[in-house]
């Protein structure tokens, strides 16, 4: 923890030093130094292009090892922005995620090489907003914790607040590079009308990485830990009473014995992460990025003497290997990858109750699911001044899930293609970045087995929605436009604005549109 505190102080100080350096440059400019202004413009263009470049993102997005992040950018850049985003859906893609959201926030981030040996980076953000029409989920972080959430048939709007910060540092010691990184998120969600859920989340990830620089390759290994906790409760203020709250257990099933009045729970987890990376030092060579993580999450009912009624294991493996070849004017990468996620849910066999004390008699692995994504991809970039980057990917997804008894099964397969591209155009004091991405997912097979004879109409509706929406075909299209401008005499400072618009069309839930606007300052 002390090292982390030092890290954050270093980030703040580095930013202050950088700002001071920029201020000196600014002062020189006021003295009418045109050559300084020109070099500052070139510096602005070169570092902003480097940090905005999609090619860099493609090269590093699968690499979570903090030790290799020092090679990510040659230049430093700090950025402050405010943003606003709105998403509207004709119908929810998932009932538990709602039919739209509006969020706004502020974020500050920095990446700073400090000489030849050290690199630091960090970010801090605050975000607030609301999610509309959340149903069948009164727990935060549904995407992480499903299926073990608290749910009811009513739902409603959810207010959301999030604080997040991130900080890292990499230090070169001879042939070795040591890196460490901290990610922290605190989130609060609540509703002010009955039923009144409240979720308070703390989520912290620590990573420690080592990289060894060989003549032709850099090989890195990183390990980390994730510490997650959420307290979750639902209250009713109206005197007339309550509705039932369900402890969901998978594919629409719930833990019937603890249905109803058990509305206070907390989730806790300590997980681990491990990654291995191989990167070519030169212009050509093969690369491998593999990460494995495991997060076992216990759901504990506070009102029943902190009884852990279920445990969910979320295991993920992402692996990508490929070959890259780059020159100054052009580069390409060909790769194959696999993203696997599997979940296993163990339910407690609770014994006799004496008041609120239940004996723990054993466990049963009642729920499993598996998502496999295999793909082949190709990316290329071209251009010296104006840069075009494009990546396409063809893949196959296979999803399978099962609840043991009464038996419920759901599976689907999809093939997909995706494309993302970016055009960077620097001119004069401007840097224009336009991006376009699109994807299409096509269902090739799906199967559902449910005990419809035992399900009530609410449960049946929710399950039918879940299966139909998950198995539907959908197409996405996103357009983005970013403009950076460095006014004359501003030294190392520049303004930027960004507008993104996206559309998702699903054969089941129709259309969803997102608009995001950001304004900020880089330095």
């Amino acid at each position: 923890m002390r090292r982390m505190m030092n890290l954050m102080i270093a980030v703040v100080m580095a930013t202050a030093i950088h700002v001071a350096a920029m201020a000196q440059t600014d002062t020189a400019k006021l003295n009418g130094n045109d050559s300084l202004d020109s070099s500052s413009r070139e510096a602005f263009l070169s570092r902003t292009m480097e940090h905005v470049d999609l090619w860099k993102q493609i090269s590093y997005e699968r690499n979570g090892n903090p030790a290799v992040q020092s090679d990510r950018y040659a230049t430093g850049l700090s950025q402050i922005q405010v943003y606003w985003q709105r998403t509207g859906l004709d119908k929810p893609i998932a009932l538990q995620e709602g039919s739209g959201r509006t969020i706004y926030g502020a974020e500050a981030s920095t990446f700073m090489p400090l000489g030849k040996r050290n690199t630091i980076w960090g970010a801090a953000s605050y975000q607030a907003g609301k999610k509309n029409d959340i149903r069948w989920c009164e727990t935060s972080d549904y995407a992480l914790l499903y299926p073990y959430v608290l749910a009811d048939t009513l739902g409603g709007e959810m207010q959301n607040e999030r604080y997040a910060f991130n900080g890292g540092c990499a230090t070169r010691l001879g042939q070795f590079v040591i890196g460490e990184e901290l990610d922290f998120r605190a989130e609060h969600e609540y509703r002010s009308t009955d039923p009144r859920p409240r979720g308070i989340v703390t989520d912290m990830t620590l990573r420690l990485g080592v990289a060894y620089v060989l003549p032709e390759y850099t090989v890195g290994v990183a390990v980390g830990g994730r510490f997650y906790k959420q307290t979750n409760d639902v209250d009713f203020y109206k005197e007339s009473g309550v509705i039932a709250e369900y402890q969901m257990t998978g594919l629409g099933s719930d833990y019937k014995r603890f249905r109803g009045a058990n509305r206070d729970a907390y989730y806790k987890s300590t997980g681990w992460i491990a990654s291995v990376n191989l990167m070519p030092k030169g212009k050509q060579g093969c690369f491998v990025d593999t990460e494995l993580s495991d997060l076992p999450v216990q759901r504990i009912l506070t009102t029943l003497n902190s009884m852990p009624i279920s445990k969910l294991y979320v295991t993920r493996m992402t692996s990508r290997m490929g070959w890259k070849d780059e020159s100054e004017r052009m580069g390409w990468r060909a790769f194959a990858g696999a993203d696997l996620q599997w979940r296993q849910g163990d339910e407690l066999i609770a014994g006799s109750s004496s008041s609120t004390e239940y004996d723990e008699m054993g466990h049963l692995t009642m729920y499993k699911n598996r998502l496999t994504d295999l793909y082949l991809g190709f990316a290329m970039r071209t251009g010296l001044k104006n840069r075009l980057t494009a990546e396409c990917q063809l893949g196959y997804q296979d999803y399978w899930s099962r609840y043991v008894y009464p038996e419920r099964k759901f599976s689907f397969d999809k093939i997909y293609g995706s494309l993302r591209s970016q055009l960077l155009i620097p001119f004069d004091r401007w840097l224009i970045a336009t991006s376009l991405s699109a994807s299409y997912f096509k269902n090739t097979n799906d199967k559902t087995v449910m005990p419809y004879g035992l399900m009530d109409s609410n449960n049946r509706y929710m399950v039918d929605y879940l299966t139909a929406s998950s198995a539907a075909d959908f197409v996405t299209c996103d357009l983005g436009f970013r403009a950076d401008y460095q006014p004359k005499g501003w030294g190392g400072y520049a303004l930027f604005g960004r507008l993104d618009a996206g559309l998702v069309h699903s054969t089941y839930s129709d259309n969803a549109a997102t608009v995001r606007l950001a304004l900020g300052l880089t330095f």
Partner: protein
Amino acid sequence: MNKFKFFATMLAMSAIGASFVACDDDDDNEIPMVNHVVKLTVPMGLQDVTVDDATVTMTNNENGKEYTSSQFVLVNDEYVDTVTVPQGIYSVNVRGKVSYMLDGTKVSNNVKSTQENVPVNYSATIESKSAMALVTYNAKEGFVISEIFFTGTLTPEGKQYSDDQYIKIANNSDSTLYLDGLAIVESEFLTTDKQDYTPDLMNEAMSIDAIYLFPGSGKDYPLEAGKEILVAVNAKDHREFNANSFDLSKADFEFYDDAENPDFQDEQNPNVPDLMNWYDYSYSYFGFHNRGFKAYALAKPECDMETFVKDYLYTATYVFTFGEYSFDMDTECYKLPNSWIVDAVNLSVEDSYQWNVTASSLDAGWAHCGSVDHDQNRYGKSVIRKKDGGKWIDTNNSTNDFESDAQASLFK
């Protein structure tokens, strides 16, 4: 390793990975049809038993489809029918009529039997079958609880109003009976809070926390066959206080307590006779548990009040556990012998139900209003005993005998 060998390796690994996930472990074979045999066995000890109008309905758990047959034939003391259904898991429900001779008179009872999660599997060598035992038990005819309205109502402002509770008692026999000395009792224990009480008397007696008796010297309060009376917790016109309530000022009887607490005095309607209070737990006045967590019964005590209050008091002990701490707890209550009880009804709610607080010979099931503790949808609802051919159904199983979540009869 050169570029091309690397690509070849990459493609080979992708193909291997794809072949693993493309393997579908689900069985897509067609579902076979099964000739499932249903055998009905009749109760032992009955003379000249016949089963008439028997229908079996098999409901597939997966798709809810129903398969019905009414072709039962007598084969070696069993009634047998065959239903052709797809392989799967079923709920099997049989309804019919059992007729038999009792002391020279032909008696007919409607019967039903249900079995859930019955596996029906195809096999070339083993017959798929289920045996179902028909039960003809009916309680001895007499007084029954025909309705309990315990939920109260909601005011127009959305607040709880519980003063308008009532209970109805019916004469389910063929002759006039007298209410004199009949007791209405409430259980001490909650159906939502199971404890290992010592001593465990449940198979011999019901533990109670309130007992009220109808007054009279023996034949003062007749009730004709097929009729019922209403006993109000508070016999007044509740519409004056809650527009969503009803008028109980014409009730046949009311509960009245001469309360010890001067701040919580019971109201008394001089035009409505009071029940005699032998004992109740409350220092103010009695009311039914308004979430329906107790059992209620009718009984004919075989002693006087002084004897009952003195000799039938006992202490039930249990251990209360909270985390690593345990506490010995006790509660004083009265034991009412099961042999005195003429009718009993357990009440609970689905999400909180833990146990019945009467012997299963008195009541093997439970009725409810609402499905969750503090259910906001329970107000204005009753549990009402079902009728069949002019008689109230009484098999000592409230799950089957009562309609739960019924609209209170005074609203109809």
